[in-house]
């Protein structure tokens, strides 16, 4: 389309003016940010298709860049600031997770699953702002510090066998990223308390006061995460999130409808946390609660012909929201609705208890990632086996991509395997829909760091290209099981060894969201995170590999047998030297004679006793 030059010039001028205004606004915003440290708290609630509910707590503390960083703080946790200063961290993420995110039921193509679904146990990665030679030593110190800070065995990541340096499979970097995972770390309240200590109000006030421990740890999944970004221009931004999937604790009689024998429960905050929200943390800049209604429900509401408001034909929210937002996905299609509550308007006299009540039975499903990735073991015995990874199409690609012949979908696999599982990377085989394919057809790029015994774990980064029409792809890798020194076995070695989850990401799929209707002055760190560029990721299962375990009681058996043999030898020898059999026989005869005499005596005595007892009773 052509336009007259004068109009173009005016447009140009206007856009320049707008840009200037925007810059000025940004400058004033940064000036404000430079003035003080800030803290915001947010909570997002979402009903899940399988009768559960998701609660996502998000706390952001930010510290402006200052010369006094690490020394003088008002809201920002001093410990974190000092950590960043000391270890020159530019980015760090630490997550503690218990349970496994259900990508099928809870979503695999939204910011929640992409950014907040984490592998079981502990996962830590950090990007350092340091020369490459110093990074490994700094990482080791960092693991020890974090271990002390969060009461967890993160220090096990210190050993060079436990961490790796992926270049592009996990996150694109210049070799200054370190990644480590402890799949078997048990996560409990002792990790939550130090995490809460980093919040200015801890769990004494505000949204964090909802964290009622029994309900959090009774849940199906919980993942507490600490993510920090630090730069010279922005200062430090610390995001603390806690994602829990809970079963609402409702009384079944109150439920309105059932769907095929299954009830979609109506719930409220009180059902989830046994508490109502009675006000914000006083030092927080903003304090909000969101209720997210997923695309599946929104579509249903649209189908029913009613408006997606807080009270429609399908459901009603117990409290009227202060604001409602439309969420668009990266293809500018409405994905879900958000209802916002400002906790400022609620206090202990008027607590907030958001809930959802279903009016009609409803079945919906969440959006899923293009492929469902899972990983499993093949083979038997304690000598060798294979790791298999399967990608099952969820049919999403049919909707999104035209299924022409030359279309393909990219997937990146990142997997770290401990050294005692010796993977033969040359044995990689690819099957597409059951047919074996040449590796060059499917694997676009591969980067492998082979494991070294007791020194390095094996790291594999692989870029795969699947044809769009594919239903199922399987990758297999053979491995030999190594032997550990007897001291290296953990307690209960017979349980097997955990191989950390592999990460599968789909770089062509982005889960970022946008909020076109939102007020530009409305700043929500939670939604900002959702807006960020988020490549769809999913973690596979943790593998449990049984290794050959030594007979741990063997040393004791050997000691016992040796001692028995020695005792027999010396005992019999000394016996032979000392004893004189002839004398003993004579002694025995004499003893028998004495025993006979004693027996006779005893018998006469007992006779006498019997008679005396009879007499005694008669006399009585």
């Amino acid at each position, binding site marked *: 389309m052509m336009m007259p030059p004068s109009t173009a010039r005016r447009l140009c001028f206007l856009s320049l003016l707008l840009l200037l205004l925007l810059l000025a606004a940004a400058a004033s915003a940064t000036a404000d940010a430079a003035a003080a440290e800030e803290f915001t708290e947010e909570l997002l609630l979402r009903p899940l298709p399988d009768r559960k509910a998701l609660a996502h707590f998000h706390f952001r503390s930010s510290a402006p860049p200052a010369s006094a960083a*690490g020394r003088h703080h008002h809201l920002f946790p001093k410990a974190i600031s000092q950590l960043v200063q000391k270890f020159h961290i530019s980015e760090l993420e630490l997550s503690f997770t218990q349970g496994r995110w259900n990508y099928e039921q809870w979503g695999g193509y939204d910011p929640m699953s992409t950014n907040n679904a984490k592998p079981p146990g502990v996962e830590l990665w950090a990007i350092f702002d340091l020369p490459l030679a110093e990074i490994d030593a700094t990482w080791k110190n960092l693991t020890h*510090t974090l271990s002390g800070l969060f009461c967890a065995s993160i220090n096990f990541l210190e050993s060079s066998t436990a961490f790796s340096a992926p270049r592009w499979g996990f996150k694109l970097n210049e070799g200054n990223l370190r990644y480590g995972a402890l799949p078997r770390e048990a996560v409990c309240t002792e990790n939550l308390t130090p995490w809460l200590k980093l919040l200015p109000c801890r769990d004494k006030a505000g949204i964090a006061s909802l964290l009622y421990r029994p309900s959090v740890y009774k849940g199906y999944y919980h993942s507490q995460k600490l993510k920090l970004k630090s730069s010279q221009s922005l200062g430090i931004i610390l995001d603390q999130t806690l994602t829990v999937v809970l079963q609402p604790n409702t009384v079944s009689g109150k439920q309105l409808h059932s769907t095929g024998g299954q009830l979609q429960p109506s719930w409220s905050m009180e059902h989830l946390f046994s508490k109502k929200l009675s006000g914000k943390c006083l030092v927080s800049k903003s304090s909000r609660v969101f209720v997210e209604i997923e695309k599946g429900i929104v579509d249903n509401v649209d189908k029913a012909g009613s408006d997606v408001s807080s009270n429609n034909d399908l459901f009603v929210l117990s409290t009227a929201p202060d604001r409602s937002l439309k969420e668009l996905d990266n293809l500018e299609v409405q994905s879900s609705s958000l209802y916002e509550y400002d906790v400022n308007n609620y206090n202990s006299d008027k607590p907030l208890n958001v809930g959802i009540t279903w009016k009609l039975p409803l079945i919906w499903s969440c959006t899923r990632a293009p492929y469902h990735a899972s990983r499993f073991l093949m083979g038997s015995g304690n000598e060798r086996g294979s790791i298999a990874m399967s990608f099952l199409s969820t049919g999403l690609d049919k909707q999104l991509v035209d299924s022409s012949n030359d279309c393909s979908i990219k997937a990146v696999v990142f997997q770290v395997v401990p050294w005692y599982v010796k993977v033969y990377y040359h044995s990689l085989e690819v099957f597409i829909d059951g047919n074996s394919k040449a590796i060059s057809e499917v694997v676009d790029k591969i980067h492998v760091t082979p494991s070294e015994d007791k020194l390095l774990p094996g790291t594999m980064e692989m870029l795969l290209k699947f044809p769009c029409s594919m239903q199922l792809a399987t990758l297999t890798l053979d491995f030999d099981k190594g032997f550990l020194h007897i001291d290296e076995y953990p307690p209960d070695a017979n349980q097997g060894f955990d191989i950390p989850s592999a990460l599968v990401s789909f770089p062509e799929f982005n889960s970022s969201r946008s909020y076109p209707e939102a007020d530009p002055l409305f700043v929500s760190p939670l939604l900002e995170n959702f807006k960020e560029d988020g490549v769809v990721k999913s973690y596979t299962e943790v593998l449990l590999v049984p290794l050959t375990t030594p007979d741990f009681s063997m040393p004791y058996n050997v000691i016992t047998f040796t001692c028995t043999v020695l005792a027999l030898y010396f005992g019999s020898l000394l016996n032979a*030297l000392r004893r004189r059999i002839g*004398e003993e026989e004579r002694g025995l005869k004499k003893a028998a004679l004495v025993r006979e005499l004693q027996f006779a005596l005893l018998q006469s005595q007992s006779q006498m006793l019997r008679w005396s007892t009879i007499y005694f009773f008669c006399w009585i």
Partner: protein
Amino acid sequence: MAEIAGDETPPLPSSSGAEESSLLSSPPSPTAISGDEPPPRTRKPGTKRLVLTASVLLSFLVGLPLLLKSTEIHRSPLPSDAIADLSRRLQSHPPSFPCGLHAVFLRSGPGSPVASLADQLERAISTQHHLLPASSTAGNISVSVTIQSGGGCTSSTAAASPWRCGLLTAADSVRDDEVFDELLHSALGGRDGDGMKVYTIVIAEDDDGKGTRVVIGKHRHAWVVGKVDEAEALSLIGNVFIKYFMNGGIEEGETGIGKGEFMPVGSDGNVVLSFSLLNADPNDWVYDWEFKNIGERILTPVVEALRPVADINIESQVLYHTPKSSYSYSDDKLGGNVLSMGDIPFFVNSNEWHLDTSISATGRSKVLQFVVYIPSARECPLYLQLPDGELSKTNAFISPMWGGVVIWNPPGCSVGSKKAHGTRRQMSSQELMETLEIFIGQLRQLFGLKPNYHAQGMDVATKFLVSEKGFAQWELDLLYRHHACSNLLSCVATLESLSSLVQSLPRMIVMDEIGRQVCSSTTLAEWIVHGHLLQYFFIYFSATVFDSE
């Protein structure tokens, strides 16, 4: 049994084994059955039994070295004799530091003073030093005397400090004390440098009828103004020197520096001063402070002054929801809530006050916590009550080796005051400065000095000039001396306890590395005790390294 004898066929039962075999194979002889006593042995035991016994013994003997070898432990030899000797020597001769006393007499009369008078006075002052208490760290004191009068100056033979003759006269002493202090400092060369510490006491004769008074300056000098005769002046010089310059005004029986108190300095010489503002209940009011500017400004001179003793870092934070854990009771007469001294041990609430040890305090640094506690509306105003029923003037207390707490009642808080409901306010700079002054006093106390001086035991009016650094030069000297001594003592105590531990546990493994470090530490400690004080830092370092092992 039988098979042993079965190999051979002895003609007669010679050994017990052979006897048994004969018993088994042939009918017993009549004597053996009829008698109760064992059959008489007809022959001596033969060689076979001897061989068997010897083989058993030998196999034991062969096994013994193997057994000993397998259960052997490695013990690096420790110089326990040298350590014991060192500790004995330290007990009998505590480490001491040379220092000088310079008495200056400013006379207003004309005429040149007599040279012999100075020497005479010097001898008189020297005789007073036996008064020095044994616990003092001062060693051989060199005394010098200068007499200045209208005609000029005369010094005793061993004048230790440069005295600029005529720069200062007795008439100057009527000026402001601060001004005179600086004048005196410049007259003495204006250096607070290293080398031997010389303390100067000036006797300014001034007959203004106000009586005698003693002023102790910020540097290493004091002066006496007034009409004093020679004997009185001598006793004043001795008193001031011993009491303050050598002992920091701490009397016998008081706790303080040099009285078995440790200095709150980490063994790597680092101290972190962590300042926390605790809002007990933010629902009532939230206070913030401008610590970065004001705190740094006030504390930097203190940090600089203490640098030779400790490397000090300052940190601050604001915490919320931090109630105290002891109870206070309301007292209508005093118009507030009162916390008695007995409740102070329970005041610090370690559950809720997450004061945190600092990450920057690496290794063995010491963290001193200084806490400003803002009571909630319910308990406001909160006062500390002394055991005698009076209220504490500073409303603060210290906990040795931990830090100090100041209870700060926000302005306008009184019993029954309305909740401000979460308003955020700033602590005014005036109030913050006052609080910090209390903290500096607490820091002095934590280091073993007196928070402030009373002229106890002095029969004349005594005034102390307060340095803006919080510590006067002579007080810092005291700290250095004490710090050096206590480091040496604690090093030797560590070595001694390790040596006795190793001796008391004969099965304890002592690594070569430990042995090597103990040896080097002991050698260095010996050097110091023999007077090589410069090497003090080396031992200090090695003792630290050793401790951390």
